[in-house]
């Protein structure tokens, strides 16, 4: 019975197994299955494998070991008891002494045995000792070395007590094994578990040996081969090594001198890795170790901060300096050492010295490190700066001194509590220095003074505040010519408003009406930027907006210029405006206005839409009903208010057919551009939102109107209606689109309608306005229209070219790429025959975009595209087209395979010979770059 079951284990089959054929894996699986089903025992298996395990040929023995290893790997812990493991361990320990091929195969079995939690200490020690004694790690291949490291890690994580028992023997064995490892994959793995090893074992007299084995890799200099599949980078290795070198305090005395030596190197990676060691070492090395080398470390870091020009490296040095100063804080001499260091450097802070900036950077890093160091630096270096500021006459020098001084003060503020700082002499004097700069200095110094105030806000005395607030009050209504000064004033005003709201309210804000519009404009700009985030001023801000909005025409214009953007960015104020009855107040004011300016009307319309669209259905209904029955002195104003309100309404709110007739009448009969345009947009918004039943009727009505009107009016009306239908994916939209396409044959301006449909700028149809915007509507429209255009016979006319250009300009990238095979004929026709510079430029720019991203659709017709672009490099009537064509050619040379371009190279170079003699210098410059690239296309560089 058993013989039948285990036919796969007969001698003949076993002896004919070949390692490469992998049949033994199948047999191992079957054996594992049978052992799990208890139809075979491990003892039986070993008896069956006798012909292999005791064979004279090492290849057969290896096969036996491999089958055994595979079977063990497939077994679960409860299926094999400690006695069996002991016997197998003895066997595998013996096999490690066998022929190297058998020994390396046995490593797999060792790893499996050690991974069993019930593997006894005796067995683990036996196996590990056998590896130490009989396997020369450095002579093994990379995968086998990796396996050995896995065995060590397994011992560390699962059999810690064995490590404790073996102690130095284990440490020595590991050190001997890992010494000289060169494979990056193995090293990444090693660096990971060595940290655990170092933390678990006591290195004792082997510390230096272990450190040397690791330190030989420092700094890591590794560049992955181009086809490396492991994706290991230098940074991975460097980080792993740094973690190892800094994970135990015992490495400190060895690692710090090594880091200092490499920090002195000119190689950037050596410096970076050395800084990393010094910084990370702070977590584990002893303070005493750092103290022992503190002088050398600080000298070296100072030297680098003073001399290195690479900004990132210098930042790295400063971060390291901060970490080390922080580490040294617990030393009892710390304060004195920092004091001595600062005193020795303070003379560098004299005005006009080249080392001024680097000295401040160095001292600032020290100050930012700890509370004590910040106070010492403020006292010594800050004091020196304050004294020299007072004796300096040059404004630029003073400005630098003040900046450095404030930075020191800021570091002390960040590191210390208020109670400590209140008694500090320098903190008390800092506001006076800023005040001096603000009152006595030139523009640069004044700006620095304002910046200083915004940074030391909480420590300004009442007297100084009084003067500062007066200065702010005077300046927030004055034009600032200098942008830096202006932003400093914004910041200072904002900070003071946060910290002293009541005083700012009383002393800075204008309570009486500002008469000049220019001053009001500046004042509102400051208010809306500086007070917007302070809850205290919310009321004042809104009242100011409302007050001036309905005060008089000029003030109202100023307010609406700001309100338009302010409300979009700060929607929380919209609710407050509604609460304060802003809309009725405003419309009462606006109803009495004569001759409003168009810009003001546009702003009013927009602001009303923004306010309305955020309101509930009830509020919208109420406002609509109340506001649209008011009588206005001016028709334009009435239209602006009405349209502003309607565009913001939700779908269910607007059902007023009279107003649709009113809008349609505006479109048909008004002679005013504002009314006509706004009505068209409003009509589109309404058609987009109203329900299906109502829509049909209105569309018929509009269709009749379209039959009556002609020219631009007809095109605009049709375009907006089409847009409103296409965006909501209404079936009628395609009929209207067809109509528009048919109009193209007769009317060149019709193409602008297509641009209007696919463009988003100044679009009343948006999700914010509760319009129905179906996903992918632009894609559908693009595909529909381009398919239609492909069917047109006499396509080589300007309106068609323009339409293709506008569609390609605004259609989503994926839509154009997806439809490219069909569109390409139209594109080529445009490039060949269109004389419209705008269209040509649009198409060239889009093609260049595709070329830059190496799109295959271009590559498939590369020659055709290239030759057409090449022809446009000499397009006479527009240099913009010539430039766009040259840039396209440049991108082609960079992005497509050389073998496809070389056949065209001479032709391109010849043609570009004409472009380098272009009449325009800008074109010549592009041509020179482009021609150079084409010359170097196949050059061996």
């Amino acid at each position, binding site marked *: 019975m058993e013989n039948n079951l285990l036919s796969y284990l007969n001698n003949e089959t076993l002896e004919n197994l070949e390692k490469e054929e992998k049949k033994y894996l199948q047999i191992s699986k079957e054996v594992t299955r049978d052992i799990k089903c208890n139809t075979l025992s491990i003892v039986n298996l070993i008896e069956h494998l006798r012909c292999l395990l005791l064979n004279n040929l090492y290849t057969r023995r290896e096969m036996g070991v491999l089958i055994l290893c595979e079977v063990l790997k497939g077994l679960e812990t409860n299926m094999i008891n400690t006695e069996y493991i002991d016997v197998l361990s003895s066997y595998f320990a013996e096999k490690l002494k066998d022929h190297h091929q058998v020994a390396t195969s046995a490593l797999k079995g060792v790893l499996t045995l050690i991974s069993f939690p019930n593997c006894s200490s005796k067995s683990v020690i036996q196996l590990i000792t056998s590896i130490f004694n009989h396997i020369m790690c450095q002579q093994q291949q990379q995968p086998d070395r990796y396996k050995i490291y896995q065995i060590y890690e397994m011992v560390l994580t699962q059999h810690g007590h064995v490590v404790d028992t073996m102690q130095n023997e284990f440490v020595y064995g590991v050190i001997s094994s890992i010494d000289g490892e060169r494979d990056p994959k193995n090293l990444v793995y090693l660096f990971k578990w060595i940290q655990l090893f170092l933390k678990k074992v006591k290195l004792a007299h082997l510390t230096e040996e272990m450190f040397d084995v690791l330190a030989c890799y420092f700094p890591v200099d590794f560049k992955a081969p181009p086809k490396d599949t492991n994706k290991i980078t230098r940074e991975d290795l460097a980080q792993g090594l740094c973690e190892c070198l800094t994970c135990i305090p015992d490495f400190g005395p060895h690692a710090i001198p090594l880091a200092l030596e490499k920090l002195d190197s000119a190689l950037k990676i050596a410096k970076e890795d050395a800084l990393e060691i010094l910084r990370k070492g702070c977590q584990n090395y002893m303070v005493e170790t750092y103290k022992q080398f503190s002088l050398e470390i600080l000298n070296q870091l100072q030297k680098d901060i003073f001399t290195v020009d690479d900004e990132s490296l210098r930042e790295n040095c400063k971060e390291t300096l901060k970490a080390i100063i922080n580490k040294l804080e617990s030393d009892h001499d710390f304060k004195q050492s920092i004091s001595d260091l600062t005193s020795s450097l303070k003379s560098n802070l004299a005005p006009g010295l080249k080392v001024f900036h680097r000295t401040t950077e160095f001292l600032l890093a020290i100050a930012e490190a700890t509370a004590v160091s910040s106070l010492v630096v403020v006292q010594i270096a800050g004091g020196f700066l304050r004294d020299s500021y007072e004796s300096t006459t040059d404004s630029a020098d003073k400005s630098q001194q003040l900046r450095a001084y404030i930075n020191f003060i800021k570091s002390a503020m960040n590191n210390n509590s208020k109670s400590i700082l209140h008694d500090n002499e320098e903190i008390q004097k800092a506001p006076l220095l800023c005040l001096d700069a603000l009152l006595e200095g030139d523009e640069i110094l004044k700006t620095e003074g304002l910046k200083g105030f915004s940074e030391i806000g909480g420590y300004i005395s009442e007297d100084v505040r009084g003067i500062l607030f007066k200065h702010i009050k005077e300046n927030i209504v004055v034009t600032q010519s200098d942008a830096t000064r202006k932003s400093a004033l914004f910041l200072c005003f904002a900070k003071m408003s946060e910290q002293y709201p009541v005083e700012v309210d009383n002393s800075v804000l204008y309570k009486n009406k500002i008469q000049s519009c220019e001053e009001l404009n500046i004042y509102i700009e400051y208010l809306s930027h500086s007070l917007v985030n302070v809850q205290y001023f919310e009321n004042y801000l809104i009242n100011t907006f409302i007050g001036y909005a309905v005060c008089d025409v000029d003030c109202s214009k100023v307010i609406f210029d700001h309100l338009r953007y302010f409300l979009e960015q700060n929607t929380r104020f919209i609710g407050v405006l509604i609460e304060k009855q802003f809309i009725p107040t405003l419309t009462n004011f606006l109803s009495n206005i004569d001759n409003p300016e168009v810009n003001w009307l546009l702003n009013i319309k927009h602001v009303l839409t923004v306010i309305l669209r955020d309101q509930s259905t009830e509020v919208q209904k109420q406002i609509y009903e109340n506001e649209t029955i008011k009588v206005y002195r001016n028709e334009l104003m009435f239209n602006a208010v009405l349209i502003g309100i309607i565009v913001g309404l939700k779908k269910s709110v607007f059902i007023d057919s009279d107003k649709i007739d009113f809008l349609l009448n505006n479109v048909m009969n008004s002679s005013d551009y504002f009314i006509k345009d706004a009505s068209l947009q409003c009509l589109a918004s309404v058609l987009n939102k109203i329900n299906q039943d109502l829509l049909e009727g209105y569309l018929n009505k509009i269709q009749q109107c379209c039959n009556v009107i002609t020219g631009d009016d007809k095109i605009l009306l049709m375009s907006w209606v089409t847009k409103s239908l296409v965006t909501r994916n209404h079936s009628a939209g395609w009929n209207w689109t067809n109509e528009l396409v048919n109009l193209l044959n007769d009317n060149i301006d019709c193409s602008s309608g297509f641009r209007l449909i696919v463009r988003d700028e100044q679009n009343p149809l948006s999700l914010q306005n509760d319009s129905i915007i179906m996903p992918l509507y632009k894609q559908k429209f693009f595909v529909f229209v381009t398919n239609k255009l492909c069917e047109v016979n006499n396509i080589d006319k300007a309106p068609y070219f323009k339409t293709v250009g506008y569609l390609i300009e605004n259609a989503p990238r994926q839509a154009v790429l997806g439809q490219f095979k069909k569109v390409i004929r139209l594109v080529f026709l445009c490039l060949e025959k269109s004389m419209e510079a705008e269209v040509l*430029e649009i198409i060239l*720019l889009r093609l260049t975009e595709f070329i830059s991203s190496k799109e295959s659709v271009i590559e498939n017709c590369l020659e055709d595209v290239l030759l057409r672009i090449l022809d446009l490099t000499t397009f006479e*009537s*527009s*240099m*913009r087209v010539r*430039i*766009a064509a040259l840039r396209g050619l440049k991108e082609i040379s960079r992005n497509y395979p050389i073998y496809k371009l070389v056949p065209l190279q001479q032709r391109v170079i010849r043609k570009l*010979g004409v472009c*380098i*003699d272009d*009449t*325009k*210098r*800008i074109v*010549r*410059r592009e041509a*020179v770059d482009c*021609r*150079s*690239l084409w*010359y*170097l296309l196949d*050059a*061996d*560089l």
Partner: protein
Amino acid sequence: MLKSQREYQEFWVVNNKNRLITQEEYDDTIVDEFDQREIFDIIRSINDPEHPLTLEELHVVTENLISVDNAKNDVCIKFTPTIPHCSMATVIGLSIRVKLLRCLPSRFKVKVEVNPGTHNAECQINKQLADKERVAAALENSNLIKVVNQCIAPRHLG
């Protein structure tokens, strides 16, 4: 993407180290003559064959040692080798010549010479650079053209 004059301006400033574009240069109807600065812009980025620096950075070429005569179609460039016995002076001269050969219209007669008194073998180099046949022969030498191409290639290609 070129959309406005401002963008042209920014592009120009970034790429040409502060050559500002005048209003006339945006005007399609006005002809811009070649000038010293334009020639300098063509050759300033040539790499030195020995150092990782450009001829401009090494002060081998300067704007004031370039002359252009649009009426006579003449361009003359004087370059200053870094040291009087610079062994790469001929290669530098050849690189300037080849760059201009590729980037200037063929109507221009280009003369590339060593700035007088700045090289020991000044006459010999000038003679070599002025000899069309020798220049053509040099460009047939694959090793030499490789070096010249490396000098001319923009940094990102090299």
